[in-house]
């Protein structure tokens, strides 16, 4: 079994009309055994920037701690929050630093940039950025997620419709992957508010 499949994960982010949604599953496993069903994969960097880390849980936790540290330092120096594009470059640089002994994580970054324009991107474990205008996926269920998102996505969805779409895409994909699932965690972010919802799906 690959090191990326040790804990199991599924992460997806989608762009809507002046908003974005980011969702993940909630399972923490050790290969075939499930340890917890309330594992947090999506982290808030600031009100308009979220990062979700799929892959090895220990590296996701270490990487998250390093990123929060760097962002807090940036906030102290610049007296403002980091833009999503800048943050994505920071994550990419941190990952490439470990080129020959990498963190086994694939981050998905989603935020509202200048003028509250939604920004999403993903990268591999070495920091190769992949920008997209519609959706990005990551984790053990990524192939299913690509198919589900491609079928269900429409441009310029309102927050409520975006929530429904991303939830259905996530649930149908993790149901086909034994290493991810046990519920879902969805954040829908607009310029004025952040809505957090827990999904209950097939709990297996």
């Amino acid at each position, binding site marked *: 079994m690959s090191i990326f499949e040790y*804990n199991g994960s599924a992460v997806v982010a989608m762009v809507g009309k002046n908003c974005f949604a980011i969702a993940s599953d909630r399972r*923490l496993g*050790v290969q075939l*055994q499930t*340890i*917890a069903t309330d*594992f947090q994969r999506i982290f808030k960097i600031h009100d308009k920037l979220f990062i979700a880390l799929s892959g*090895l*849980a*220990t590296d996701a*936790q*270490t990487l998250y701690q390093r990123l929060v540290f760097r962002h807090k330092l940036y906030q102290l120096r610049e007296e403002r929050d980091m833009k999503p594009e800048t943050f994505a470059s920071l994550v990419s640089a941190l990952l490439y630093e470990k080129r020959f*002994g990498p963190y086994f994580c694939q981050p998905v970054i989603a935020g509202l940039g200048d003028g509250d324009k939604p920004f999403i991107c993903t990268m591999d474990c070495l920091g190769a950025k992949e920008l997209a205008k519609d959706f990005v996926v990551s984790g053990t269920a990524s192939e299913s997620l690509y198919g589900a998102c491609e079928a269900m996505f429409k441009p310029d969805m309102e927050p409520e419709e975006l929530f429904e779409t991303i939830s259905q895409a996530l649930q149908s994909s993790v149901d086909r992957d034994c290493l991810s699932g046990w519920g879902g965690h969805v954040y829908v972010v607009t310029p004025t508010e952040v809505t957090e919802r827990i999904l209950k799906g097939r709990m297996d």
Partner: protein
Amino acid sequence: MECVFGLVGNGFAIVVADSSAVHSILVHKSNEDKIMLLDSHKLIAASGEPGDRVQFTEYIQKNVALYQFRNGIPLTTAAAANFTRGELATALRKNPYTVNILLAGYDKEAGPELYYIDYIATLHKLEKGAFGYGSYFSLSMMDRHYHSGMSLEEAIGLVDKCIMEIRSRLVVAPPNFVIKIVDKDGAREYAWRESVKDTPVPSA
């Protein structure tokens, strides 16, 4: 074949560990205490390579004591768990410790807590957790019978059910177990469950 498991009840946390010290096919002793008192209100149950287990838990114990000497107040359970994870994570890519840890503690503010820390430094707060081959039996038993806020009698009943299951279904089941509890009155040994008694060494 090391079995460690634990659960959180109403105002207390219990951890149970087997007490066999094994080297290949030989059982050196069957009354080895694998649950260490970290400080007055914390317990650390460890399983894994024997040298690493003793060395690493003693290291954590002494550092927790040092913090109390320097700062005059004890660490919270969450802080001790995060410190332990940090040490494991730093060592992971240099010379890793193969120790799995269940850290149980009681704070006035947070109440009883149980933390699961993998040998690769995955940290997660849980209500019930287990390590080793015994986890296949104890986790299932706890999934069936556990509920939030169990009384001490109920919790010990569940612990005994798990031990019975391990003894009857695990092929090289350890004969003896130690049960330790932590609550507002502190961390202490609760009971032993012995089916094989070591012959006492005659004194000179």
